């Protein structure tokens, strides 16, 4: 007998996602990543490894960078989540996003949402990071296409242009 719809075991989770309050009815152990992608249709956050290694699933949870593939949604109850979709809600690109475009920071784009959030998180702490600080700040986000250099250039450039906006 399949246990595919144990509705009784679901719970109500309320959270703010990109400034909007949402309530979902899900199993407590659903990954935050899957809730974002499937329940809320926010597919900008990606799954690359399912083990917290690649950082493609990075989001900001209460302003803190986390890997959403490792967070049971119950632990995000009441939290403020920012995903890549939350960065340019008015259609305008943030300074950091524009810098990625100008410097070649995105090639295939799959690591890009997580990478941008990680960079944003870094720039909040260190508005003009050194190369070493960028290396460390982005070490949890794997990119297979760029070899990282143009991503670093984008972050440096964003810092130069005043990217905490």
């Amino acid at each position, binding site marked *: 007998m399949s246990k*595919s719809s144990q509705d009784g075991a679901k719970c109500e989770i309320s959270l703010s996602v990109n400034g909007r309050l949402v309530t979902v009815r899900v199993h407590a152990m659903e990954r935050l990543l899957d809730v974002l992608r499937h329940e809320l249709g926010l597919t*900008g956050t*990606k799954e690359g*490894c*399912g083990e917290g290694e690649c950082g493609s699933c990075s989001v900001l949870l209460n302003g803190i960078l986390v890997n959403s593939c490792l967070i049971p949604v119950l632990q995000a109850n009441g939290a403020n989540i920012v995903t890549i979709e939350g960065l340019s809600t008015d259609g305008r*690109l943030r300074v950091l996003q524009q810098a990625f*475009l100008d*410097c070649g920071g995105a090639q295939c*784009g799959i690591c890009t949402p997580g990478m941008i959030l990680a960079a944003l998180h870094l720039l909040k702490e260190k508005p003009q990071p050194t190369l070493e600080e960028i290396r460390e700040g982005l070490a949890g986000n794997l990119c297979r296409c760029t*070899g990282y250099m143009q991503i670093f250039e984008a972050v440096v450039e964003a810092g130069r242009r005043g990217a905490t906006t």
Partner: protein
Amino acid sequence: MKNTRIVGTSVPRLEGRDKVTGQARYVDDMVLPGMLYGATVRSRIPRGEIKKFTFGPGIDWKEFVIVSPKDIPGKNCIALIEDDQPCLADGTVNHPEEPLLLLAHPDRYLLPKAVEAVSVEYDPLPAIFSMEESEGLSQIIWGTNNTFKSYLIEKGDVDALWKNADYIVEGEYTTGAQEQLYIENNGMIAAFDVQQGLTVWGSLQCPYYIHKALMKLCDLPADRVRVVQMETGGAFGGKEEYPSMIAAHAALLAMKSGKPVKIIYDRMEDMTATTKRHPSRTRHRTAVSKDGRILGGEIEFTIDGGAYETLSPVVLSRGALHAGGSYYWPSVRIRAKAVATNAPPHGAFRGFGAPQSLFALERHMDRIAQAVGLSPVEIRRPNFLKPGQTTTTGQTVREEIDLGRLLDRALELSDYHAKKKKFAEENQQGGSKKGIGIAAFLHGAGFTGSGERYLGSVVGVEACADGSVRVLVSSTEFGQGTKTVLCQIAAEALGLRYEDVGIAQPDTQEVPNSGPTVASRTVMVVGKLVQSAALGIRQTLRARGLLEDSYSPEEFCAACRAYVAEHGKFRSIARYEQPDDVVWDEEKYRGSAYAAFAWAVYVAEVKVDLTTYSVSVDDFVALQEVGKVLHPVLAKGQIIGGVAQAIGFALYEKVIWEQGRMQNGQMTNYIMPTSADLPSIRVYFEELGNVHGAFGAKGIGELPMDGPAPAIVNAVEDALEVPFDSIPLLPEDIFDALAERMDQ
């Protein structure tokens, strides 16, 4: 060369905005109404006969769609060069993770459990796992002698060399499997409708490869199979041929269930079940004169193809054709073969055989240098190919390439001589050891020999109702900049603005077959066809009196609008024609193997930490001649990305095999470099032009994969004075070698 306005500048990436805002749609981002999820039951043994399937308890099997080989409407194969690879194993298993059955269900969470619940009874057969075992023929697992393909390249008179040689230098070099590790796993969605036929959407490089495979598998005509590429999160060759398999699986489930089916692999399945770079073994035996000239030699190049043929003959070909590198061989015999083992088939990965044979050659050049008593620089210089000389296949170098000067420039950029001297002194003092190493190499762009003629690529450029122009190619974007550069080319050719040109998403219903997106051919070959097709639009508009000889972009757009309003959409087609000066003899394997070669010299500076035996690359110079740089930011990005992957190939990425199955199929245990592991990679370009490429461009996508590994290992030898002939070179290997040397 004429001045260009758009080509040669770093215009914005066409689809870049979507990528930085999270709007880009990859296959797993798409959901269709009523969609089921699919999964694959796979073999746990490397070889044997399937006796029985048991569908275990705890699962309501009635809720599942189950596909077995008998559900295949057409031929049970993934059509490629041969039809030997089954879509689903039919009675016999030849490698671990071989697909056996397919399952689908609406609840994606249920599938892993269901897959686990299918048990399979086998009669195991003895399996083989190495090239040596395969050659030994104790088990015949493929064909009559385990050999998928062999080539023989001969030039001059090799047998006469040995008695006159002042030195005979031998060496054996091996490279391991490497996982492409695109960050987006393989995925496909299929839907079948009795009227419309079959449609698949997915992460892929070659829509028409899949189209051809599905026609045969599903017994459908061309116009009832449609393949659509979605945004693809990295590929590197790993999505050249493999997607036909996953598309076939999704298609079969969709046809049986009548519902759309999505199959997305997780990381472990992708790593363990899909293709990897072919492991290789190269043996060199070289006759060298007293003054360090290569008189000639024998090269034996062998690659491990895994259990089925797939693309091994083509990987073998490229590897064999690059085995002599950028040197002049008066005489050579290259014996190349691809052999079968009971591992999942190996496949395309950036470089496609050349990184393997060039690793061997460039390591061997340093070995020759030592034998002869010359430096790595001075052994290479006199042996470089010069204009007018011929390659190993007898292709005449027609361009004015001066490899000695390229070498000198690379040495200057890397401060090679000063550093080599300084390191030699500092290494005496204990602590870590530093070294510097070079690799000089080339990469042939486009399909080999008669390959491009056989492909017969077709490109379209369309005039649209709104006055814009649209490029129609099956060439796919997966990060390298296909869309951007092809639109640049069309805009440049027509004197338009970059914004006036669009490009269709590759959809076999919509675009012609411009060939696969492989072999570093897209900018060079397909780009040149885009150029021609674009000019065809202009020709037609002029012929209709809608356009003057000189015009502004606005006037061009107005002319398009007028034309389309009157005559409907207009599509200009260009077809590939083999240039007269690229002549190839497929029988004798002689002639012009490639329409163009890009040339390079790379220099790697390394530090070996003697506490941990780990190697760090502290500086890297990548200098290459590429015809013309069409987009500086993208071109630089290709080189840096390729060098990074090759650093992984050299120092980090080891596939751990047990009984033909990859044991470290997780990102935690398959080690690719992070941002903290890579140096600043310094990239420099030279441009000699290329008559066979759009605006003089040569292909560059794979070039950067060929040089870093030997440059790094040469540098490690420089640092430690211990040779290493096998990659990946891990700290454990360095420790073992140093410990052994101490024991002696």
